[in-house]
C-alpha cells in the first residue's frame, strides 16, 4: 500500500506583489524520488520551504499527515533536509556537531554517521571552517543519512561542488540511504546527474507546475529524433515541441508521437531531462515574451 507523503491543494504564497506559488496542487507518494526542476525564481525553494514549515502559506498542505507550519518541530523528527550547500555552522567542531545532533534528535544513529564519516577524510577534531566545501557536504550528508527520516528534502545540495563529490553524493544517497520506503525530494540545476536517480519529475515555472510525470511516463512520452536530412519536412509535419541544430543536423523533440514512425526518419533516443527542460522553458519564455509585447501594445 502506498502512502501519501505530501499532499497540497491550492498552495499559494505571495511576496509583496510577486506570486511565488500560484495555487499549486501536489501529491508525492511514499517511496518516490522526486526531482523539482525550474529556473531561478520559479518557486522551487518557496515550495520546499512551505513543505518544511519554514514559511507560512495559503491553501492546504499536509506533510506526513501534519501541517508543517503549525507542527514544524514534531515534523522535523521525521523529515530531514539540506537546504543549501555548506549551511553547517562554521565554528563547530565535527565531534561536537555529532554530539549535538545525537543529543537533540531521537532518530539519529551516531554509529551510522561514524561509519559514513570513516569513508571520508574528515577529522573529528576539525572545525567545519577548516573543511573544504566538498567535505562539508559529505559531513552534512553523513548526518542526514544517519537520521531515520521518512522524508528527505534536498535543495541544491551539490551546488558548487566538483564532479567527483557530486557523483559520490548521489551514489551514497541511493546505495546507503534510499530503501524504497523513504521519500526524497531534490531540486538541482545539475539535471543530468539526477536523471538516473529520480522516479518522478516535476517542472515548475512562475509558481506553477508545468510538467508532472513519472520517469517511466517521461521515457515513453518524449522522444528525441536526430532527423535524416531527407525527412526534415516530414518530421516537422509531426509537430515537434522543439527543434535545434547540431553539426548541421536537425534534432527534434516530440511529445507523444509514435516511436516506430519516428525511427523511420532518423535516429531516436530518450531525451535528457535537460533537453526537455530547455525545450519547454525556452518555449514558455518565448510565449511570455510575446504576451508581454502584446500587452505593451
Amino acid at each position: 500500500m502506498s502512502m501519501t507523503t505530501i499532499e497540497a491543494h491550492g498552495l499559494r504564497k505571495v511576496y509583496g506583489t510577486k506570486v511565488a506559488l500560484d495555487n499549486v496542487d501536489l501529491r508525492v507518494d511514499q517511496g518516490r524520488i522526486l526531482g523539482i526542476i525550474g529556473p531561478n525564481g520559479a518557486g522551487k525553494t518557496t515550495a520546499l520551504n512551505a513543505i518544511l514549515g519554514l514559511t507560512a502559506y495559503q491553501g492546504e498542505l499536509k506533510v506526513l499527515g501534519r501541517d508543517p507550519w503549525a507542527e514544524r518541530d514534531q515534523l522535523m523528527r521525521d523529515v530531514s533536509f539540506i537546504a543549501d550547500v555548506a549551511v553547517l555552522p562554521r565554528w563547530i567542531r565535527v565531534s561536537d556537531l555529532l554530539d549535538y545532533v545525537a543529543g537533540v534528535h531521537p532518530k539519529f544513529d551516531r554509529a551510522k554517521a561514524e561509519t559514513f564519516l570513516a569513508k571520508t577524510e574528515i577529522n573529528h577534531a576539525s572545525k567545519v571552517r577548516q573543511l573544504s566545501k566538498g567535505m562539508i557536504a559529505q559531513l552534512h550528508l553523513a548526518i542526514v543519512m544517519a537520521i531515520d527520516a521518512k522524508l528527505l528534502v534536498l535543495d541544491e545540495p551539490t551546488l558548487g561542488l566538483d564532479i567527483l563529490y557530486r557523483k559520490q553524493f548521489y551514489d551514497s544517497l541511493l546505495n546507503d540511504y534510499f530503501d524504497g520506503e523513504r521519500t526524497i525530494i531534490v531540486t538541482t540545476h545539475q539535471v543530468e546527474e539526477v536523471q538516473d536517480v529520480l522516479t518522478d519529475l516535476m517542472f515548475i515555472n512562475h509558481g506553477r507546475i508545468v510538467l508532472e510525470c513519472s520517469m517511466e511516463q517521461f521515457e515513453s512520452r518524449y522522444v528525441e529524433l536526430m532527423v535524416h536530412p531527407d525527412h526534415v519536412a516530414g518530421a516537422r509535419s509531426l509537430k515537434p515541441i522543439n527543434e535545434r541544430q547540431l553539426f548541421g543536423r536537425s534534432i527534434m523533440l516530440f511529445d507523444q508521437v509514435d516511436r516506430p514512425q519516428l525511427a523511420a526518419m532518423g535516429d531516436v533516443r530518450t531525451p535528457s531531462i535537460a533537453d526537455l527542460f530547455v525545450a519547454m522553458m525556452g518555449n514558455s519564455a518565448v510565449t511570455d515574451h510575446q504576451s508581454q509585447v502584446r500587452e505593451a501594445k
Partner: protein
Amino acid sequence: MNTSPIPNSELPAPSPKPFLWSVKREIWENKSIYIAPLIVSGVILLGALISAGHLPQRRQAAMMLDEAHRRIAIELPYNIAAGMIVITAFIVGLFYCLDALYGERRERSILFWKSLPVSDVTTVLSKMSIPVLVLPPIVFVVVVVTQFLMLLISSAVLMPSGLASTSWANFNLLQQSVISFYSLIIIALWHAPIYGWALLMSGIARRATFLWAVMPPLALAAFEKITFNTSYVWSLVKNRLLGAGDAAFDLHHTISIDSLSQLTPGRFFATPGLWIGLVFAAAFVIGAIRLRRYRGPL
C-alpha cells in the same frame, strides 16, 4: 545502536534533551562567556602582584584609620575586582544577545538548526538563559576565586610585617561570597529586560544590531529632552542599567556593603520596577520567538 525489530514509532523516544544541548552549543560557540571573565580576573591578579610592593606601607596607613574607614580602604580592591568582572560579564552577555539571533541568519546556519527537531521556543529560551542563568554562576565562581587569590597574595606580601591577618579580618570572604551570590541574582533579574531587548533586536536587524538596540532609547530620550525638556526616558534607562542595588541593599549609613544585614531581598522583590521589567523581558522573548519562526537567512 538503535536497531530494534519493533518499528521506531512503537518505542518511547530515547529522551532527547534539546534544551540542555542547545545551551551547550551556545557555550561552544561563545567561549567568551567564560574566557572574558577569566581574562579580566587574570589582569586583576597581575595588577595585584605588580602593586604588591607598596602594600605594606598602604596597609600600615590604613591601620591608622578608624575601624569603619579601615574596613572600606582594605575592602576596596576586592570590590573593584568583583565590579570589573561583573561589568565584563554584562558586556559579554549584551553582545552575546545582540548576535544570538543575527549570527545564525548571517552565516545561514539557521537552515541547519531548523532542520532538527528543536522548537523556536527551546532555541530562544536557551539563548536567553545564557546571560540570565549561565553567566551568573560563572561570574560567581570567578569573583570568589579571584578574591581568594587576592587574599593569598596580600597575606604572602604582608606576612613579614605581621599584617597578614588584617586582610582576612577586614574582608570576610565567606560573607562576601554570600553578598556576591545575592548581587548576581539581583542583577540578572534586573537586567533581564535589557537582554530580552537585545535578543529581540538581534532577531529584527538585518545588520548593525548594536545600533538597532541602542538607537531607539537614545532617540526617544533626545526627542523627549528637546520636545518637553524632561528626561524621564533617560532616567528610566539609567535606572535599568545601574539601579539594581537601590532596593536590593540598605545603603543608608555607608557606601560599602559588608554586612548581611544590608541585604534587603524583601524590599527588592516588592519593587514594581522589578516585575515591570520582567514582564517586558517576557514580552521581548516572546517577540524574539515569533521572529525566529518567521525569519530565514539574510
